């Protein structure tokens, strides 16, 4: 059974954009696709730039798959799997996330 951690209210999120949350010492980027009312969570660490900035990237989709593009060097990461579209060998960690009673909750257990 997953252990859901309360993060913030849905209204604290940025529509069609990202914020960063601190969850048990980890930096996690959270993106909110307003139209579909969908949320995604991925490690805030940019493995190319080697700094914690992914929450500040632009989001969108590649052939229907939700993605974020790094604000530093523009690599694209799938928000579903964390897989980098530009470099097969790079994969970022994604986390389970959900909206419950207008609150955003994350589980670190994958």
């Amino acid at each position: 059974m997953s252990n859901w951690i309360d993060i913030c209210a849905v209204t604290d999120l940025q529509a069609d954009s990202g914020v960063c949350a601190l969850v048990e010492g980890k930096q996690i980027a959270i993106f909110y696709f307003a139209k579909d009312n969908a949320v995604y969570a991925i490690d805030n660490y940019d493995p190319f730039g080697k700094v914690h900035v992914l929450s500040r990237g632009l989001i969108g989709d590649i052939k229907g798959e939700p993605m974020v593009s790094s604000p530093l060097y523009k690599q694209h990461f799938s928000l579903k799997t964390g897989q980098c579209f530009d470099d097969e060998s790079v994969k970022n960690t994604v986390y389970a996330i959900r909206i419950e009673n207008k609150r955003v909750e994350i589980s670190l257990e994958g």
Partner: protein
Amino acid sequence: MSKKQTLVVIGNGMVGHNFLENLVASDIRDNYDIVTFCEEERPAYDRVHLTEFFSGKTAEDLSMVSDGFFDANNIKIHIGDKAVSIDKANKFVTSAKGVAISYDKLILATGSYAFVPPIQGHDRENCFVYRTIEDLEALTEAAKAAKVGAVVGGGLLGLEAAKALKDLNLKTNVVQFSSRLMSAQLDTGGADMLAAKIEALDISVLPSKNTRKIVDGTECKHKMEFADGTSLETDIVLYSAGIRPRDEIARISGIEVGTRGGIVINDQCKTSDPDIYAIGECAVWNEETFGLVAPGYNMGRVVVADLQGQEAQFAGADMSTKLKLNGVDVASIGDAHGNADGSLIYTYQNGADEIYKSLVVSADKKKLLGAVLVGDASGYGALSQYYLNAIDLPEHPDSLIIPSRSDESVGLGPDALPDSAQICSCFDVTKGQICSAVENGCHTMPALKDETKAATGCGGCTALLKSVLDCELEKSGFEVNTDICEHFAYTRQDLYNLMMVNEIKSFNDFLKQHGQGVGCEVCRQAIGSILASYWNEYVLSDQQMSVQDTNDTFLANMQKDGTYSVVPRMTGGEVTPEGLIAIGQIAKKYNLYTKVTGGQRVDLFGARLDQLPPIWKELIDAGFESGHAYGKSLRTVKSCVGSTWCRFGVDDSVGLAVALENRYKGLRAPHKIKFAVSGCTRECAEAQGKDIGIIATEGGWNLYVCGNGGMKPRHADLFATDLDKETLIKYIDRVLAFYVRTADRLQRTSVWMENMEGGLDYLKSVVIDDKLDICADLETHMQNVVDTYQCEWKTTIEDEDKLKRFRHFVNSDETDENILFVEERGQIRPANEDERELALAEEV
């Protein structure tokens, strides 16, 4: 059930492998069980690019074998096993490891070996050849303990090997028997120029040296003693004295070999035994051997065709070459020495730029017979087309090698080539084949390369291939795909028009009406910029926020470590002492790195996301505004001090610069825009390198447009002269509004101008003569932008809701603890990786 025949290939080198690829791609692949013997420890790899092993390519990178190739095609490969004899009568091959196989058809693709001159002491320790990966590994190992190296042989390969020694940090010598470098390919003038250039790279060239013996050295491992009594001490000797065909297996098996070695083949590449073929460097055709891959590939194709029962013949090969040696361009085409009767020679020698070119033409000056290019081989593509396709030369053939001082180009356009013209010699791809591939839908270089293989060998034909592609696309009216991304099938200009016509004000409306999916960083940013240029709304409004580029979202430029820079506007580069002090105090308080920029203002670096609002609040309180250093928008208007102080100044350049910067600040555009104003023709503000440049003259202001610094500098064009200030501003309004409406995404004014049909004259007719009758509209657009200006930072810090975005964490007031600075020259800078690791280690 029809029984399959057995086909055996001896040698899995470049040619043997290419033959296998062609065979399994043909319709006779199922007629054979295929077996190949590979003497080396690994299957075929790219020998042509062997030297790249030193620049980090691994054996895998060089491999020519696609994943699972042998399994997928049911080919049995005996790796590390050498075929040792052929029993022609009973048709079977035996290998060193004892494999014996009956064949129906046998292909010899055994290549060559590097020739080592039988000098006394030639087999001492640390004497190498340059042919296999193992050779290079041994050389690298030996180089670790060596200081000096000598290459024996100044041919093509010898010079490539010399570069390798140089890269291994050895003091490098090229010892050659002949009096000049690359004697097979170059004439004396070309060779002399090449020698000068090679010497300039700190590689010593020792011509006319006949090595007698190699003995113990005193300072180095060896001493090479030459016939002329001189000697050279060296730690490593690398032989590159030519190659010899590997015909030993043919010799012992009674297959005919040439007088100077090599397995004799006919036009069908058959040896003296009709069931045995030979291809590649091991073969001799018409008493000629071929030390390049392309002819070997051709022989392989001939064999496949012959096995298919088709007519095909090998007809010799063009041995023209082009290469870059240590950054020196060298090319040789055809009869470089002018051996043909009555041939005429043109030479061009430019000592200053170290360029040498010569042309050998027929007695009637109609055909090109040969050419040598050293120092500048840019003409190689066109010249080899003249040569290979016997195209008539221009009236003055020397125009092909004399640099054109005008803009007129003497190159040979792809249109002038016949369909039979060979574009890629490595894979024998003709212009006709390329054209039909383009017609069948290969509209990009990757697609075209994939389909035709052209440009996937030595890469020398890449530029020519691209020009054929472009030319074909244009001719057949195919539209080059200009969609900005997968979400919008439009160009930026289309989107701009759609926005104006349909009065669209947000990205989401755009997506709903004209797009698909949720967008990406490309369309979001492009549309964000378009909306901002036209409506000039606050960029962080709820509608606009998600579409701004990352830097616009936070109104600051992100640096490599995730911190930001802060650039307050300093119109015209002018700043009061109070202003400077305020900046200094703020920088000190927040511990920011400060630097004067190339745009005449001060940049503060190292601000954390959460520090941006308080820093800007203090700057605004001190009277500063956003400098838009983060936006695709007006950046700076540089100025020189002008008539106010300068004894030569004709007019008040600072005053004008300040006025212009205040007028256009905040204008969002397809790309950034820069201005400069100089007070006289001495041009201290460098106005002619700017998008908009203005220079004061006795008669008024001269206006220059579409200049650029940066990656591809462009001098601005003089647009209008002796203008009064009012007309000047009117013209600038119009030029900029027209640019904003019609330029492509991320196109500076310079590129916009270069691509504008009609160029400068057209722009003048639109802006000065109002040819399109849109000037009133353009001016209204610009006036609207001027009237609706707001300092985005001021608006932002006054809005509590917007400030939420600048917290690092949505659920905590902590800040990003991973940001780490160290001190350098009295200020902070981001810690590098080693320093970070050190700091982390200390923490633990």
